[in-house]
């Protein structure tokens, strides 16, 4: 007698939830079915790779388990000789048309194709024939495309279209000539790509990668005439904790500082400091807009993918973008401007490296300057490995360097969706009412991973309407009323990637929604542990206003901390 909602997989009774696929039910039961294209968290299955074929009793044809809906009483075999033979043959076919330069590949030991081949015991290249031969696309500062390593699983296309709603890349040509790329065989730099890098996170091979700057940073570190300094974004320690077993975001941050200094960085700063500064400027701008009549709503400008999106797709929204630079750029501007006054550089050149969860930051840095190199979370790992450093074993808590060493809990929240909003509300309340936000500063409405969050708050007699967009793919319900002039929102936070920076395109390959949820919890925890909850009370921030900037939106701020935008649609025509 079998249970309700249960099927038999390889002889084991497995429970499923109605509507679930066999692939998913099997995975939960600890039976892994190899697959190279399905991503159930992101999009509906395309059944393209054909690796997840299983035998279903009563059906003559093999079935793809990624599309096969689990039904009561099904009998599925995932490792029958027939299935294994077909799977193995498919991998052999993929390998036959793959460069196979595994020893020198950036995904060495981290490649899903190699892993599947190994699991299936493929130990020989049986099929030999012509391999595809496409040029590398090195055109953009952020992403590298190597179509020769592409196995055409379609994950990048699905993420770009269905998750991000961008559609910069798609399949081109057909049959064996098929490849993935931007339109008109152009480089990705002149496409409508926003460089969010989500495609690089889901690519099973090294066909889509961030453009690595590890070598450049290593060279700078080796240069006796350079002082290399780092800034670390809040999402980075929240992510690195996954492998390094740290107890809190702060301790991870300080351990990372230790590691970086051991490698040769001259100073390590906290991008969270710049987040606090951003809040001072951005909230002041919001208040000014609310009080002087717009343009409203105002959008956040921290997420460079979102900026690219506006510039390329919706330049009509440029007046709605906050003119504040992102924290990365504010920090770098100050590092380049202020830091030499704090420390005698001895005539050496100052090299500014930022450690970010994001590929689009590389583009932002190349366009706005100040930042010399951007390393993504994945590249940080690579850099430390070069120096033989295992973060697991770096337990000593280092120090961050003045004058950009501190961040409020609000600044830490910047790393996740809703975080900028929550930080802004805390400071807006103080600026508008003179008193701090009641209830322990927590803005419950801004928290969580829903795609769209809209809420209103009464701040000192003024009702302000807020919107939070978690991932570009969810923009539509916010932008549609705006285009029709029917939006009553005042302030909208947009983060390009699902989950915010913690789900960024430069984050570890195997990040899934559960990882992102945990990282967000870690940021909330960092805020909870922080005694300093609000940006406006950050002593270093106050100091820099007192000594140099004067007041938010002042003359010097305008030059150092604000920026302008370009209508890139017009640029192309």
């Amino acid at each position, binding site marked *: 007698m079998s249970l309700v909602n249960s099927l038999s997989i390889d002889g084991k009774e497995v429970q499923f939830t109605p509507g679930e696929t066999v692939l998913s039910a099997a995975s939960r039961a600890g039976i892994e079915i190899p697959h190279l294209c399905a991503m159930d968290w992101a999009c509906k299955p*395309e059944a393209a790779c054909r690796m997840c074929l299983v035998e279903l009793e009563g059906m003559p044809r093999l079935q793809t388990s990624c599309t096969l809906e689990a039904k009561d009483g099904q009998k599925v075999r995932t490792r029958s000789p027939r299935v294994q033979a077909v799977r193995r043959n498919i991998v052999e076919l993929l390998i036959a048309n793959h460069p196979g330069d595994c020893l020198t590949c950036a995904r060495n030991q981290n490649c899903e194709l190699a892993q599947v081949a190994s699991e299936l015991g493929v130990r020989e290249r049986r099929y030999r024939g012509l391999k595809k031969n496409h040029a590398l696309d090195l055109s953009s500062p952020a992403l590298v495309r190597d179509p020769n390593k592409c196995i055409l699983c379609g994950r990048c296309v699905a993420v770009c279209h269905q998750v991000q709603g961008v559609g910069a890349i798609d399949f081109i040509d*057909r049959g064996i000539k098929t490849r993935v790329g931007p339109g008109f065989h152009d480089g990705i730099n002149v496409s409508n790509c926003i460089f969010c890098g989500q495609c690089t996170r889901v690519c099973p091979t090294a066909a889509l990668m961030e453009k690595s700057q590890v070598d450049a940073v290593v060279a700078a570190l080796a240069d006796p005439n350079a002082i290399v300094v780092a800034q670390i974004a809040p999402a980075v320690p929240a992510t690195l904790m996954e492998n390094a077993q740290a107890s809190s975001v702060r301790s991870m941050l300080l351990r990372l500082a230790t590691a970086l200094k051991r490698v040769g960085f001259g100073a390590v700063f906290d991008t969270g400091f710049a987040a606090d500064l951003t809040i001072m400027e951005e909230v002041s701008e919001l208040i000014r807009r609310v009080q002087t009549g717009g343009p409203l709503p105002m959008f956040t400008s921290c997420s460079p993918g979102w900026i690219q999106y506006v510039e390329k797709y919706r330049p009509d929204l440029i007046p709605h973008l906050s003119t504040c630079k992102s924290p990365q750029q504010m920090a770098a501007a100050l590092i380049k401007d202020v830091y030499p006054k704090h420390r005698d550089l001895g005539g050496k050149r100052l090299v500014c490296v930022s450690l970010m969860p994001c590929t689009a930051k590389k583009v932002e840095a190349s366009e706005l300057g100040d930042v010399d190199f951007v390393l993504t979370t994945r590249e940080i790992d690579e850099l430390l490995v070069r120096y033989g450093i295992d973060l697991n074993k770096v337990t000593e808590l280092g120090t961050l360097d003045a004058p950009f060493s501190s961040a409020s809990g609000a600044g830490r929240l910047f790393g996740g969706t809703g975080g900028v909003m929550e930080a802004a509300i805390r400071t807006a309340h103080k600026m508008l009412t003179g008193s701090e936000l009641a209830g322990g500063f927590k803005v419950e409405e801004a928290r969580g991973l829903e795609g769209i969050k809209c809420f209103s708050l009464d701040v000192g007699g003024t009702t302000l309407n807020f919107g939070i967009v978690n991932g570009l793919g969810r923009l539509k319900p916010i932008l549609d009323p705006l285009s029709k002039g029917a939006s009553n929102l005042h302030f909208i936070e947009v983060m390009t990637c699902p989950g915010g920076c913690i789900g960024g395109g430069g984050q570890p390959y195997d990040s899934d929604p559960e990882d992102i949820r945990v990282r967000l919890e870690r940021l909330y925890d960092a805020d909870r542990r922080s005694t300093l909850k609000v940006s406006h009370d950050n002593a270093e921030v106050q100091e820099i206003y007192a000594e140099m900037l004067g007041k938010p939106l002042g003359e010097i701020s305008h030059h150092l901390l604000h920026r302008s935008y370009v209508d890139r649609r017009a640029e192309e025509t």
Partner: protein
Amino acid sequence: MQASNLIAACCNRCTHRPGNPCRDLVRCLAEGPICHSDDACAKTRQERMANARRGGQGTLIFVGAGTCGRANGSTKVIARIGAFLQEHKISAEIVEVGCVGYCQRELFVDVQKPGEPRLAYADINLGNIDQLLEAVFVREEMRNGFLYGRHGDGGAAWADIPEINTTDFFKKQVKVVLRNAGIVDPRILDAALAAGAFAAAAKAVCTMTPEEVCNEVLAAGLRGRGGAGFPTGQKWNIARQTPRAQKYLICNADEGDPGAFMDRAVLESDPFFVIEGMLIAAYAIGASKGYIYCRAEYPLAVERLTSAIEQCRRVGLLGTNILGSLFSFDITIKQGAGAFVCGEETAILASIEGGRGMPRPRPPYPAVSGLFGKPTVLNNVETLANVPVIINRGAEYFQNLGLGKAAGTKVFALSGAIRNTGLVEVPVGIKLRTIIYDIGGGALPGHKFKAVQIGGPSGGCIPEQHLDTVTDYADLIQLGAMMGSGGMVVMDERTCMVDVARYFMEFIRNESCGKCTPCREGTTRMLEILTSITERPVGDEERRLERFRGVLHLQELASTVKEASLCGLGQSAGNPVLSTLRFFRDEYERHVIDQRCPSGECQGLAVYEVDNATCLGCLLCKKACPSGAIVGERKQAHYILVDKCVGCGSCVTACPKHSIHLVSEERACV
């Protein structure tokens, strides 16, 4: 565009108006008027009908002017006929009709003089049209050398001339789908109406429930004629029972198999029949919108369909409230951009939606969630063209058309090395031998039948010993072939079966959409292996080894591609290899082991030799050889090193004394 004379009101008591269509419209044409009683009106209607049925008044000259006719020069012939009539001041009307199906004897020109039967003249071209016209119109010799047969009964005076359907090519055929092809003017609604078009649609829409229509088609045993053979009524019932406000019907006219031209002939020769079938199908499933997905390479079909749809709209046979039934339906033509895979049903959906023509996994099946996510039925042209017959004459009639347990008829496109090429419509379940020998006339004179390739590129090759197989879905699949859309390419001993497999594999490789791994990569590797077999491994030892290794992999690859691919194209992509391996393994072995092609078709395996007696030693062949395979000194006889020869034949062309020739198969074996 000609306005419909038939549908025009007979007098002002006639209630039918295009804006207010009448339930009895179609019946009224033949039996009318129904809404009022008037002998004069009845007479008017009968005269109009008789005129439409005949195709016009006075002397009529019908010219087969489908795409095949045009390829045989029909446009110039028609112009010449027009000029001839003018020169001789003869009053006659030229009617362009579709294709009668007998390609081997194109062009067909029919002449119908008042009071005489319609006579068909065959093998007409621009060179002999004047002879025919002079015989028929100047010398009044209706019985001349071009005469092929007569259409219909001509009475005792014409009994000596065979009725066209009693001639060898036609007598074993059963014309259902093609019954009007080449006979009725496909350009004019009146001609179609006179031939009985839209009677079935009127019956279905006005007197039957959608459920009854579905069940009638189900009972008739009609199966999809596009190849897969899914029961049509069952598909309709699924869509009918899926409750959605918007549903779609798609006519799949993306005929892409090499050697298949059945649907083209139907669309060009009888577009109204297809539209009627769509109307009935749409009514049965509750679709208000239909698409005809027609390949852009069929411009004449698109032209005829466009005109037919417009004419139907004008008289209220398409549009809102068709025949006063409150049922509304309209059709849009969508032209495919030339991708073979767009004949696959889910790829058609993607293409119509404006996306890339790539199949998607099923379920959900289109009948549940298809075009734009709405229930959608896709039927092939021929399937839809069968529907009016089922509704008109009943399920039992249709069921009995087939032989054995099979139902209905199937159109096959017979081509290749056979005496009578053309379109043949035969009962489903007929033996292959009957089609090839009785209708097709067997192999060409002096040659021997070797195999028939059936089912298009994804089908299989069936050898002589299996010709008693019946043409039914299951039977053909057992032989590794498939019914497919109906292409039948006959091959004789001059055809190399390895080369055939290679040719079809190249086609599939080029047409694979590239989405799923086995089809995209597997067909490429199979093609590489097949190509290597048809060439001599000139050069390094490794290539020689790879050639052997490849052969060992061929069967495994074909099976994997068949088993693991996403759509029908991939799932049958292994068939050309598997079926030729099954029946012609010896030919593969000759290629691989002996490096010889028994049919001599694989140039890369050809063996040449120099006739020492006549060779001048001029060195020209040696210079022309691209692979350095010729040795010999000036003024001495030359030799060809077979191991180095790539079989290109450059030396043959270069030799001034014609001393180099192909070594015959028999001698090369020794």
